[in-house]
C-alpha cells in the first residue's frame, strides 16, 4: 500500500490550486508531482517539464521533503516515507 503524503502549496501555486494543502499517495517525489498535476489541472505545466523523454522539475520550482530541497536529494527519484511532508513553491525571490 502506498504512503499518504501531506503536500503544502505556497504563493501562486496555492492560489492556482485553490488549496493550501492536500494528501496524495505516492512512493517517490516524481510520482507525487505527477499526481498533483493530474489532480490540479491549473498546475499542469507549472511544476514539471514534460518535453523530454523523462519529466524534469521546472527551473525555479522548489520541492522540499521535510525541509530538504529534492534537487540536493535524489531529485524526482527521491523516495517518500510515512513521515514525509512535502512543500511546493513557485519561483520565489526577496531579501
Amino acid at each position, binding site marked *: 500500500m502506498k504512503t499518504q503524503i501531506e503536500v503544502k502549496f*505556497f*504563493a501562486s501555486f496555492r492560489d492556482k490550486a485553490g488549496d493550501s494543502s492536500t494528501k496524495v499517495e505516492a512512493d517517490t517525489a516524481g510520482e507525487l508531482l505527477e499526481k498533483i498535476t493530474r489532480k490540479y489541472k491549473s498546475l499542469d505545466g507549472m511544476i514539471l517539464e514534460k518535453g523530454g523523454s523523462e519529466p524534469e522539475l521546472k*527551473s*525555479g520550482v522548489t520541492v522540499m521533503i521535510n*525541509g530538504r530541497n529534492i534537487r*540536493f536529494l535524489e531529485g524526482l527519484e527521491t523516495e517518500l516515507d510515512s513521515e514525509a511532508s512535502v*512543500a511546493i513553491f513557485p519561483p520565489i*525571490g*526577496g*531579501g
Partner: protein
Amino acid sequence: MARKILRVNMEDETLSYEEVPEDYRYLGGRGLTSQIVADEVPPNCNPLGPNNKLVFAPGIVTGTSAPTSGRISVGGKSPLTGGIKEANAGTSFAQKLARLGIKAIIVEGKPENKGYRCLKVDDNEVELVDASEWSGIGLYEAYEGLRGEYGDDLGICGVGIAAELSGSNSGVAFNDMEGKPSRYAGRGGLGAVMASRGLKFVLVDDSGAPGVDIEDKEVFDQGRKKLSDALTEHDVTKPGGALNSYGTSVLVNIINESGALPQENFSRGSDEKSARVSGEKKADLIEERGGERPHRCSPGCLIGCSEVWKNEDGEEVGVLEYESVWSLGPDSGIYDLDTIGELNWQCNDLGLDTIEAGNTIAVAMDGGVKEFGDEEGALELMDEIRQGTPLGRILVNGTKFTGEAFGVTRIPTVKGQAMPAYDPRGIKGIGTTYATTPMGADHTAGYAIAPEIMGVGGDADPLSPEKAEMSRNLQYSTAVIDTTGHCLFTAFAVLDIPEGLEGMVEEVNGVLGTDLTVDDISDIGKSIIETERRFNSEAGFTKEDDRLPEYMREESLPPHNDVFDVSEEELDKVFGSLGMGESS
C-alpha cells in the same frame, strides 16, 4: 553639465561645490562612498567624533530612465561595527540628487553647539537652515511638517530620536513615494554619524534640474531595453511574479520550511506559527482590508515589491518587508502582523534599523528583560528608547551592546552587526557572506540565498560547507550593482538572463562613455571590496573578525540539527589577504 561634489562643513557651515576628481569620475553609489571614506576618513577615528564623515552618493545610472535604479548609498565609519559602512535605500531622493548633477554630498566637521540644521539643496542654491524645532519629535510628524513647509514634491532624508541619542542602531531615513520616512539606509548606525555632525535633515528639490548627462544615448537605450526585458521576463521580477504579487515576505514560508527562519533569538529554525506572518497571509489581509500592492519605493521600478499595509483600523502603516517582519516577529516569538506593523512604524518613527532593532528586542527577551512573545512588552521597549531612559539608551545601541548588558551569550552578530533573517547553520553560504563581508552581518552583501534556496544563478546545497567561491563571486557582483544604482533585486533577473547583465553594463557605458564589458564586473567589485577591507584592516580588523559567533559552531539548530561547519580555512579563502596589506 559636469557633475559636482557638494561639500558641507558643519563646523563652520561652509558649503562648496567641487569638481569631481578624475579618480571618482567612473564611480557612483557604494563604489564612490567607500572610496571617499577611504580617502578622507582616518580608519582609527571615533565614528561620532569630528574626523568621521558622512557621504551620500546616488548610483551611476540613478536619475536616468534605467529601470529599478533609484538607489542612494550612504557611507562613513560605522559606530556599530567600527569599520567602513555602506547602506543604501530606494527613494526618489536619490533620483532628485542625481538630476541636480550632484555626484556626492560629503558632510564633515562637528559643531560645538547642540542645535540641529537642515541642508536644503535645489538647482539655484544650497543653504543650511535651523531644524532644532524637530529635535525629539518622531519622523512621521517631522516629514509631514517639512512637506507642509517646503512642498510635497521633495526628496527628504533625516535622522530620528535614535540618532539624537547617538545610538549605534540608528539609520538614515529617506522618503517613500508618499513622502513618509519608510525607506532606510538602515544598517550600521550612520544616523548617529549624521546627527553627531548636527545635521538633522537634507531636503532636495529638483525643479528645473538639468538631469543626468548621458554620453552615448544609443548605447544607454540599448542597455535599458535589455535590462527591462529581463526584469519583465524573469519569474521572480516580472509583473505578477513572486515579488510583485506577495512582496519580500514571500520568503517567510520557504525559509521557515527550510529550517532556517530564526525563532526566539536564533534558538530554532522553524515554527508553524510563522505562516501567520507570511507574504501569502499579508496578501490576503491587504485584499481584505485595502491597502496597495504592488507598490514602488521609487519611480521607474519595474519590479514593484513594496506595498501599503493597513492595520486593523484601516490606518496606513507603510511597507512591511521580509526582514522587518521576521526580526520584529518570529525572532522575538511574535506572530501577529498588526503588532509587527506597529513595531515597524515605531522603528521608522524613531529612526531605527528594523533588523538591528528586532534582534535587540530578541536578545533583551533572552536576557529576561521581557518574555518571548510579549507583544506589549516589545512595544514598551520602543517607548523606552523614545523616552531616552537608561534602558532605552542600552537598547538604542543595538544587539551586541544589549546582549552583553544583560548577560546573554547567544548574540547573533558579526563585527558587532546583527544577523538578518537566515540562520547560517541552515544556509551556509549566507553565513559565509555574513562572516566575511566588510560590512558586518549583511545578507545583501552577497545574497547566497539566491542559489541556495531559490535556484537563481545556479543551484547550491544550503547545507554544504564549501561556499567560499560562491560568496566571493556574489560579493564582487553585488558591490558593482550597488555602484550602478540598481536595486539588488535586479540580480534575480541578470543572474539567470545574460542579456540582462549585458544591458546593465551598457547602461553604465552609455552614461559614462566607457567601454566596459561583463567580464570587467568581477575586477571592479574586487577593487571596491579591497578598498573596504583595507580601511577595516587599518581600523584594526583581522581575519579573526571574519567569523561567526562561537555558539553557532557548537549549538545545533533544530529542525535539521546542524551547526555552522564552514571551516576557518574556507572563510579565509573568500578574500585571502585582499586589502590586508599583503599581495592577494
